């Protein structure tokens, strides 16, 4: 791992909500070093602060009612505290995101083509034909069966798995350095999960995109990720190489999580 370049360094990230009378901290001292081209798993039960940390990295946290401390260093820029327009050039260009619920993450009134094309329209000055080629390639990359047809369809005409593929295509079209996958397989059934994970793995290999894979499904994490961070109620309780953690968990909580895995094999 030492030979790889460090692309994202999160240090002492604390997130505190101020929208109630008593401030509530949801993430304590979150640290993460992300190296180029690796896949890091972020596991833990619901409410453990996985998604919040990821949102902070993506720069999607609200600016109001919230107190954030620490730093998220990307390429010398602190994503947590930088100006909004600076953040905007990095968002979309260098960081992509996939959400849990593919039903709500696509805009219902636009065709798939327009949505996948959107980042190109915002960030590049490509011609119409070049954009079309790129969209077509992105949709082929996520292994959609008939990309030309899918382009002309609306989100409600697609199945959950297809929508999630479209989301991945949208997130990957600018070839970002970091892809945040926030429980991308939770809303899908097991066979589709395996396919989506395969697509993610393929994109990771071909484009060298680092992936932060958030999940509470440890069997997927075990197959996909090189490193794992285990979170519980806002703290990172354990982190290290996947095989070490799965073979030799130190924390009681990690042991419990691992013992809860229903075993299935999909390769």
């Amino acid at each position, binding site marked *: 791992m030492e030979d790889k370049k460090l692309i994202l360094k999160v240090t002492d990230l604390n997130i505190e909500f101020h929208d109630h009378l008593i401030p509530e901290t949801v993430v304590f001292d979150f640290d993460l070093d992300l190296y180029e081209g690796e896949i890091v798993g972020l596991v833990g039960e619901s409410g453990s602060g996985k998604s919040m940390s990821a949102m902070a990295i*993506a*720069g*999607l946290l609200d600016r*109001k009612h919230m107190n954030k401390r620490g730093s998220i260093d990307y390429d010398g820029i602190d994503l947590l505290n930088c100006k909004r327009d600076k953040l*905007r*050039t990095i*968002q*979309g*260009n260098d*960081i*992509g*995101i996939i*959400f849990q*619920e593919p039903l*709500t*993450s*696509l*805009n*219902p*009134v*636009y065709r798939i083509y327009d949505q996948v094309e*959107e*980042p190109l329209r*915002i*960030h590049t000055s490509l011609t119409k034909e070049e954009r079309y080629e790129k969209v077509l390639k992105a949709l082929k990359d996520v292994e959609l069966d008939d990309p030309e047809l899918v382009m002309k369809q609306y989100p409600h005409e697609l199945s959950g798995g297809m929508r999630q593929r479209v*989301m991945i295509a*949208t997130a990957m079209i600018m070839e970002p350095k970091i892809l945040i996958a926030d429980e991308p397989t939770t809303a899908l059934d097991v066979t589709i999960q395996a396919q989506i994970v395969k697509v993610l793995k393929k994109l990771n290999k071909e484009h060298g995109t680092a992936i932060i894979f958030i999940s509470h499904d440890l069997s997927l994490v075990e197959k996909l990720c090189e490193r794992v961070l285990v979170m519980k109620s806002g703290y990172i309780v354990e982190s290290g190489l996947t095989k070490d953690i799965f073979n030799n968990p130190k924390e009681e909580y990690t042991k419990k999580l691992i013992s809860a895995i229903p075993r299935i094999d999909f390769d």
Partner: protein
Amino acid sequence: MKINNYIFVKDISLKKNSLKNNRNFIAGSIIVVFMMIFMLVGMIASPYDPTAIDSSAKFQGMSLAHWFGCDNFGRDILSRVMEGTYATFKVAFGTVIIGTLFGIIVGALTGYYGGLIDEILMRINDSIFAFPSILLALLFISLLGAGTYQVTLALGIAFIPSFARIVRAEFLKAKNMDYVKVAKLMGASDFRIIFIHILPNTYTVLLSSIMIGFNNAVLAEASMSFLGIGVQPPDPSLGRMLSEAQIYLAKAPNYALFPGVAIILLILGFSLMADGIGRD
């Protein structure tokens, strides 16, 4: 089994083109189109000059020469209803445009940004909303003076709060949707997110409230003209004709009947269309 299949197929076809199969919407659009043609004929080929006075034709009943009869000055009621419908339509249309435009801007800003801007704009909104729109329009008229454009402006301002609230509610709902987050992460500007990503998603609610707003505007304009502060004489207006006709209700019932029917048809048409869209 066969019956089941049949029902299933029928359901699908109903869902697919719901607007085409929506009786309310079709009936509404037929009435609206009829009123539009009626209005256009009045603009292009009005049978008589709507303001021309003919003392020999005073209170003439319905005849081939004057289909709807004549009023107390011998003016042709058909021409006046045509012209009055146009005047009413113009005011209602302008009102809805002003109301929707500013309503969308206020609603989008408050709903999307929240915080201080929301507090300030919505409290102003609430205070405007607290007055009945006619009363508010009366207030503006007393400041601006009577007349078609003044009425349009006054009603338009009075209509902003209701549109703003509807749009704000829709934006509050939409701004936490994942597709908005995705758009943000793509680096889309706030302007782009508000007008290109969220606004088109509000169209069902917005469209039917525009239709309902149009109806309210027609009624409000008619009431204002009825009270004598809308369209100024001798230009015809449906509300004004009604108010003049009530004196002669026993003598010339057709004088009150036709402007009234015109108002009813305008409102009925747009109501049915709004209902059709809302049910879609």
